[in-house]
């Protein structure tokens, strides 16, 4: 009897999981701010522009699924457009913090599984997006 109850609960949990799996409608999260100390951090790869090529590779692997191959965001995912000033005006440290922590409430996972330097490479690549025409990122 007990195992049937547990089995039923597990199945209900699984179905519930699939139903709530969708991302909510994107609205910039006003509460998603990097702490001051994190925002003040400088990109250790800022003087190594060659590292941006690795950043692009990492972006296509990890970010393009939700933010699009060109970083302009995807309407159906309600994901951010990295060309927008609301993104580009943030400090390197703030972007690094957001990549590291994610924003679970809005469906963005944490990417702390990537080594620190690789996360900084992603920041480097996001900066580069703003310095080139859209077509060259495709």
């Amino acid at each position, binding site marked *: 009897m007990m195992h049937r109850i547990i089995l039923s609960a597990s199945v209900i949990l699984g179905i519930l999981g699939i139903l709530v799996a969708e991302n909510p409608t994107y609205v910039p999260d006003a509460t998603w701010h990097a702490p001051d100390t994190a925002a003040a951090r400088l990109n250790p790869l800022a003087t190594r522009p060659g590292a941006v090529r690795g950043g692009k590779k990492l972006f296509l692997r990890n970010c393009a699924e939700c933010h699009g191959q060109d970083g302009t965001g995807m309407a159906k995912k309600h994901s951010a457009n990295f060309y927008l000033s609301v993104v580009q005006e943030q400090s390197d440290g703030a972007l690094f913090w957001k990549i590291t922590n994610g924003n679970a409430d809005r469906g963005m996972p944490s990417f*702390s599984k990537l080594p620190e330097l690789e996360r900084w490479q992603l920041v480097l690549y996001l900066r580069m997006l703003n310095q080139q025409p859209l077509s060259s990122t495709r």
Partner: protein
Amino acid sequence: MLKRWIIPLVLCMPAAAFAQESPYFVTYDHHMEEPGNLEIEISSSTDIPRAGQRFYFAPWTEFEYGVTARWTAEVYLEGQSTWRDSTLFTGWRIENRFRALKREHWINPVLYLEYENINEADLIQKEIEGGAPDIRSPNSALRGAKDHELETKLILSSDVHDWNVAGNFIAAKNFSQDEGVEFGYSVGFSHPLATLASGSNCRFCRENFSAGAEAYGGLGSTLNFGLNDTAHYVAPVAAWLVSDNMTLRVSPGFGLTRQSSSMLFRFGLSYEIQGVGDRLARLFKGRP
């Protein structure tokens, strides 16, 4: 009828997704499956037995789905084949992992809840709790004994300077037999072999490899707490990102007690499919 064919096709449609997995087989860290992604993994445990123990090969298939950024659910299908004995399906399990805190901290707790419906012949040893698994009796004597077990884990995991350190504390209650509450542990650490990504799409460069070690074993039960008659292993672990969506993991485990196998080889190949949740939602809601 159409959906009967479409669903498997949609689920099996390959799509690039970053599949770099932690190299652990037993220890869980705090990194969850990405929301909407499905990872399919085929793994196995093979032992080198001590005198009186059986030589077996125990494969399992694992379906891991990222429900949300903080919730990952998994289903396992398990079997085993014993030398000069038989091959059988040994059961299934459903597990859920919930990340307790929204942000990264020094220690990141994850709560784990699992239901197992297996028999005593199950030997994948995805974790070890209580005493040692029976690797001496024939399958015919073990397959009839069912285990309906509820298992919980407290997963504590930390990323420090690109090292991952994780510890799992296990408590399990088998509702089919009076074994009390059984306990177990696993601990592990790992590190990528390179921390800077190259610009090329190389497959054998160091950034695609990570390595470490884990140790795991049983701690007895409320009826017999302690290390008596328990199995313990220490195992180097390694993972290789074969392609953007495929990871290969290997681990040779060394048995530390008489109740452990002499060695326990583990092998796993995982394949990640992105956006499965979106595809299913479109399918059932009829959205474009």
